[in-house]
């Protein structure tokens, strides 16, 4: 096993960084800078194209534009490039592309945004083409050296062979010449059935460093002379600082500065703990603004008002739902709800920023979008993006928190601007992180459905009240007051129901909302639980009931059948075990899950097993897919048991004692069934969570007869009366 090091890099500023990290006893950033090192030895690595860098000793470095937060994209994208490149995988490592260079080179690496399970499915085409183009250039360079037609040459595992004469050249020998060749305009991509590196469970490139405790995360950044900062934002969202008494804090050991801003106070000190201790000693009076009285009750009332709003926005209309409901043999109505939910990444939000004497802004951060971080840093500091750089670090979890808002970068740069010339690492305390998130929206959804005399669903109606993420992050994406992420899964059901109506009441409230793993996923929970209610009312098996409404050939049907078969749907469950299922498509893939649960005498729910079948079209790394299935199960568990509540305008929960996360003992056995049908590229970072909670809640109903419609689950919900 070769430990491959993760190599964040700073193009154009490499020499500088090399100098700075060398100080500090060698224990500062243990990054390696291959370019600088090679240049010193007179043997430079060659950029064949923006994605592929080849060293004279044949090492291949693949540049990755998306972020790595545990989902495996760093490796999967390298696999795709290496596949088309015909690289020797044992010689492949990866590094993050530089956001500054990205901007200067006219956004050459495509999208840097890492969310919506887009890492692979949003860039497979251009990264494979980059690999294929580099291969053709390398082959052409070898052919030119041999003075033979390129068509007589073939590449394999980093070696080019001239067929007729069996002469061989290694990639490292021809890379420099290849880089000078005009890139091909069109390249042919390999059929996935012929893949040798992609599609295989190769080892992840980022794992050895993480196991060794190497400094790869944003929180690990250490620069010579760097100071540390801890921040307190107004506990009520939208509130301001009224007055600050920092005399005691300023006298504390190691404290360099107390920063007072419009809506936050930060302390800069020579260690994070000292900064945080001093911050606790700062007496801040806050002006809560207009939301100081907001609470769970006012938020629920806001949603109820939305559901009753006669001007509610139309998100879907097919047939005549009201008419069909009026004529139905049986009408069911149910209301489902859930609370706000913090991402609770294990690594709190963090940003190291350095305002250089020449005004250049250098940032190190754990970000899901390097380009957005660059824009946020430059805008905050008031410099053009060319005068800023973001070093993308490994993320200690992302789940959507570190993408859109970039609040941590803005805050980090603002604090560093108070100490120009000195690098300052701003890390949030867990409490700050818990209370200043961009939460998964709370929501309230009312559904009605009509069954005919044969138990067939003839009408479906849903009214959704919840905040809009797009209204905060991308208002231009709203259509007629409808946020697609707020209505999805309800307004685009695969089920054949002739009369449907879905309405959306955007009620934004004051709690900031953001993308949270599989945004809009609650709708899938509600829909699939309600479907089970309908199946029960119709006296039908939940699987048969769904299949009867899915067209032949629908991939929802395929995954549902695959999950049911793998889980033994229809076979008796052991005593005390309930089984439930659900199917939801999203993020380019189709996912169906079967859960098995038990409930003890105190009402404690345990998920024993989760079988999830996913059709993502193609599969780039099956082992990573299994890991993501497990990951989605745990994140889904957390969504069942965790919630954030609001009191006096602020988030009540503060840390893991009052926001207890699932532990090893809570972990179900997760079985992933991959059913890739080819021809498309779906994600794996999120689809696995889509059917999870509904499958569990349906299993709870099968076991206990209790229908839980309010999330998170409270212990009393399942306690025997």
């Amino acid at each position, binding site marked *: 096993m070769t430990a491959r090091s993760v190599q964040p890099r700073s193009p154009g500023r490499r020499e500088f960084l090399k100098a700075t990290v060398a100080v500090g006893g060698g224990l500062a950033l243990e990054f390696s800078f291959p370019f600088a090192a090679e240049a010193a030895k007179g043997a430079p690595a060659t950029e064949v194209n923006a994605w592929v860098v080849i060293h004279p000793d044949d090492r291949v470095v693949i540049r990755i534009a998306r972020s790595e937060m545990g*989902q495996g994209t760093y490796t999967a994208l390298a696999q795709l490039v290496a596949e088309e490149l015909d690289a020797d995988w044992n010689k492949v490592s990866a590094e993050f592309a530089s956001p500054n260079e990205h901007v200067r080179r006219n956004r050459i690496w495509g999208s840097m945004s890492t969310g919506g399970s887009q890492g692979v499915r949003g860039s497979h085409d251009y990264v494979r083409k980059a690999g294929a183009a580099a291969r053709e250039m390398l082959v052409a360079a070898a052919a030119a050296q041999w003075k033979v037609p390129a068509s007589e040459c073939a590449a394999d595992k980093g070696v080019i062979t001239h067929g007729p004469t069996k002469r061989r050249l290694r990639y490292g020998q021809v890379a420099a010449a290849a880089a000078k060749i005009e890139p091909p305009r069109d390249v042919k991509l390999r059929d996935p059935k012929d893949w040798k590196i992609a599609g295989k469970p190769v080892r992840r490139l980022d794992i050895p460093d993480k196991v060794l405790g190497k400094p790869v995360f944003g929180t690990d950044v250490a620069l010579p002379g760097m100071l540390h900062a801890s921040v307190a934002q107004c506990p009520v969202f939208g509130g301001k600082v009224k007055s600050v008494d920092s005399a005691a804090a300023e006298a504390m050991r190691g404290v360099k500065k107390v920063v007072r801003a419009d809506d936050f106070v930060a302390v800069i000190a020579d260690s994070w703990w000292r900064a945080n201790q001093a911050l606790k000693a700062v007496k801040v009076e806050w002006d809560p603004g207009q939301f100081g009285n907001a609470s769970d009750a006012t938020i629920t009332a806001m949603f109820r008002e939305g559901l009753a709003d006669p001007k509610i926005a139309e998100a879907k209309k097919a047939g005549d739902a009201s008419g069909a409901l009026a004529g139905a043999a049986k009408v069911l109505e149910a209301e489902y709800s859930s609370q706000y939910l913090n991402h609770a990444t294990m690594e*709190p939000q963090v940003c190291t920023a350095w305002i250089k004497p020449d005004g250049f802004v250098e940032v190190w951060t754990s970000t899901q979008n390097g380009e957005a971080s660059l824009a946020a840093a430059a805008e905050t500091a008031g410099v053009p993006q060319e005068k800023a750089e973001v070093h993308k670090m490994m993320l200690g979890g992302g789940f959507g928190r570190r993408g859109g808002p970039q609040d941590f970068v803005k805050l980090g740069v603002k604090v560093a601007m108070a100490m120009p010339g000195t690098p300052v690492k701003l890390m949030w305390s867990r409490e700050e992180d818990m209370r200043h998130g961009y939460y998964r929206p709370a929501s309230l959804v009312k559904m009605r459905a009509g069954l005919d005399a044969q138990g067939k669903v003839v009408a479906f109606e849903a009214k959704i009240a919840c905040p809009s993420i797009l209204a905060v992050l991308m208002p231009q994406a709203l259509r007629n007051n409808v946020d697609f992420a707020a209505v999805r899964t309800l307004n685009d059901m695969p089920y054949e129901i002739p009369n449907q109506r879905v309405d959306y009441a955007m009620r934004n409230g004051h709690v900031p909302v953001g993308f949270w793993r599989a945004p809009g996923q609650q709708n899938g929970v509600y829909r699939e639980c309600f479907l089970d209610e309908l199946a029960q009312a119709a006296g039908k098996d939940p699987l048969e009931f769904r299949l009867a409404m899915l067209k032949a050939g629908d991939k929802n049907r395929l995954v549902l059948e695959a999950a049911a078969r793998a889980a033994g749907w229809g076979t008796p469950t052991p005593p005390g075990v309930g089984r439930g299922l659900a199917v939801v498509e999203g993020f380019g893939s189709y996912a169906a899950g079967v859960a098995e649960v038990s409930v003890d005498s105190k009402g404690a729910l345990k998920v024993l097993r989760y079988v999830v079948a996913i059709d993502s079209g193609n599969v780039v790394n099956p082992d990573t897919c299994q890991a993501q299935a497990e990951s989605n199960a745990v994140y889904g568990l957390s969504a069942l048991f965790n919630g954030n509540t609001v009191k006096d305008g602020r988030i009540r929960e503060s*840390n893991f004692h009052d926001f207890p996360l699932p532990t090893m003992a809570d972990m179900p056995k997760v079985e992933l069934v991959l059913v890739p049908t080819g021809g498309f590229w779906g994600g794996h970072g999120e689809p696995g969570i889509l059917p999870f909670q509904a499958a569990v809640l349906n299993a709870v109903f099968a076991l206990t007869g209790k229908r839980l419609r309010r999330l998170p689950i409270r212990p009393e919900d399942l306690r025997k009366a």
Partner: protein
Amino acid sequence: MLKLTVNGRIHSVDVEPEMPLLWVLRDHLNLPGTKYGCGISECGACTVHVDGEAVRSCRMKAGDAVGKKVVTIEGLGKPGLHKLQKAWIEHEVPQCGYCQTGMIMAAAALLAKKPRPSDADIDEAMTNLCRCGTYARVKKAIQAVAAPVATVSPRKS
């Protein structure tokens, strides 16, 4: 000045004795492999060994570590990789990886006490939090080290 023995080396550190060990390690001794997750001993990301016991260093005062042997992830396998680190790589345990050094330290302390832990022993000892859901693989890697026969991997990189 506090004299701390960390990874076999004696360090004199100019910190107040009430500073938690975590921050001495991270900010004063440049050993960032030990992570901050909660600061209240709930998550275990900061787990180190103090005289062989797994300790959550965010709640241990540096002064209380004086005269004791502190081992962090950086010193666990010296020289080379600890067998758990090898198993972690073999079983591709980490996802984001942030909690994993604490997990490995907790697992090492468990195995030192109980070389053949049962499933229940592992569940009870391994209360570290992981947001990515690596729990099943953490357990598998611990079991592989506890029962070395099982470490043979069917996969090759």
